[in-house]
């Protein structure tokens, strides 16, 4: 494994957008000039079933195409998964877990089966609803993962994402500002 490679595992439920979040992260890293992989682990597609998605981000093309068993970072889009999925399995001590929850890192740590590394939390629901008027956890989660992992420089990330939103929402420019606010607020408010 290349030393500069960052490996990330996403846990979510079918329909919540963990796969999309991993694709957005790949986009952000790609725009910053990196080599990226974003891939989901597929099973029978059922809304609400636990799903996993992955990212590799590196400065050289990665030829490995296996799943990721010892991630540097884990992102949990739905905190109810902490009860049923061993989300910290293989997670490196030097890395971190980022959980979408209104709770604090200290409240989450006891649910993590003895994980000794950094625990971060982000209230993606609150941030999304206050800026977009609806619950889209992906945008705040993406920003929290970028902030914690440092896989993309903050200012470059925000400027690339603005360009991407202006392109994507060319016909709905009113939603660009809300999404950008989500990103900034999440980067500022991620705890731990």
């Amino acid at each position, binding site marked *: *494994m290349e030393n500069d490679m960052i490996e990330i595992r996403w846990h979510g439920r079918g329909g919540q957008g963990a796969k999309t979040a991993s*694709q957005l992260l*790949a*986009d952000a890293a*790609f725009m910053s000039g990196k*080599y*990226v*992989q*974003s*891939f*989901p682990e*597929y*099973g*029978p597609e059922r809304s609400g079933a636990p799903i996993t998605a992955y990212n590799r981000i590196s400065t050289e*093309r990665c*030829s*490995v*195409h*296996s*799943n990721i*068993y010892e991630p540097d970072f884990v992102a949990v889009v739905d905190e109810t998964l902490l009860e049923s999925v061993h989300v910290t399995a293989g997670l490196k001590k030097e890395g971190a877990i980022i959980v979408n929850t209104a709770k604090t890192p200290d409240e989450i740590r006891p649910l993590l089966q003895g994980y000794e590394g950094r625990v971060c939390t982000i209230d993606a629901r609150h941030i999304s609803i206050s800026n977009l008027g609806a619950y889209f956890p992906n945008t705040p989660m993406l920003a929290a993962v970028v902030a914690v992992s440092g896989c993309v420089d903050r200012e470059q990330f925000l400027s690339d994402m603005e360009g991407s939103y202006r392109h994507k929402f060319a016909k709905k420019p009113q939603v660009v500002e809300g999404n950008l606010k989500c990103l900034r607020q999440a980067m500022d408010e991620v705890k731990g």
Partner: protein
Amino acid sequence: MSIRERLSGNEAIATAMRQINPDVFAMFPITPSTEIPQYFAQYVADGKVDTEFICVESEHSSLSACLGAEAAGCRAVTATSSAGLSYMNEVLYVAGSSRLPVVLAVACRALTGPININHDYSDSMAERDSGFIQIYGENNQEVYDNYLMAHRIAEHPSVRLPLMVCEDGFITSHAIENIEIEEDDKVKAFVGEYQPENYLLKKENPLAVGPYGVSGYYMEARVAQAQAMINAKQVILDVAADFEKTFGRKYGFFEEYRMEDAEIAMVIMGSSAGTAKAAVDQLRKNGVKAGLVKIRVFRPFPGEELAKAIAHCKAVAVMDKSEGFSACGGPLFAETSGAIINLDQRPKMIDIVFGLGGRDFTVAAALSVYDRLAKIADGGEVGAVYTHMGQREK
């Protein structure tokens, strides 16, 4: 200038199809179809292609519709996966024997049962004798590049055979990675227009396609078809040479990775080869002379060339990602064994069936294979020639 992009394998193939702008795309739009027709439907809706886009009720019909179009002199394409490819089986043979150079994109996936949607080569290997050329890619870049070369190989007058561009289901088809996309006009210039010598309603030489072949003629037709598959070898190399000259990326029948002085090696296909390369790199750092051969072209099978590539090795593991139920090894092992049978000095060889139904293949798993090969190379027992890897014991 190439365009730096990030796309999934399916998007990469759909992009290549858009750039080529085929005359006809017939497809079955429901699972186990791939996302390729979904992306392509968007291009049709956006007016980016003027392809006749036909939704049919099954894969048997999608390929049949393509063959009708090909017989009429059109360039036709389709895409499928898994059981969809199996459902085409009868028509695949018609394509080959009618010498209709349709290009079929396959996201290779397991066959039932148990019911499974994930990657292995059960579907494509089951069609290895159908008369299709089969070209496999390790990642989205290779799949895209293979697609750009596909029509020229298939349509070449000395070949005129159908061709499958194979990607690894989900692992490549759904994984987003960096890719270099070529400019539309350069792709169009490279692929060129399809100008068939003969077609159904050509005024000067009207043609019958798919007639009955009595015993007095059937064998001649089959021998001619077999000769076309032999001819395809040179055409594949010629098109690859032109591709390299045009776009700068080099391809052959297979890729030799650190094989020059390799004592132990794998023969492997697709994305797993990329994972195994990381194992080779680790071993090389420790002074172990490991290498691998990644098979790109499985039909026609480059037997002679492969034999030369592995002849100097002491021990070789053939990695089969499909189970042929032969009780003595998978299809890649059968081909590789056949290739080396007349060498005076040949490596000890084992077959390992792995990765069925999406069972993950890791760098650690690849290292364990090289570990076994190292023991054989040191004069140890070969042991069981045909084994499975990665399954639970209980």
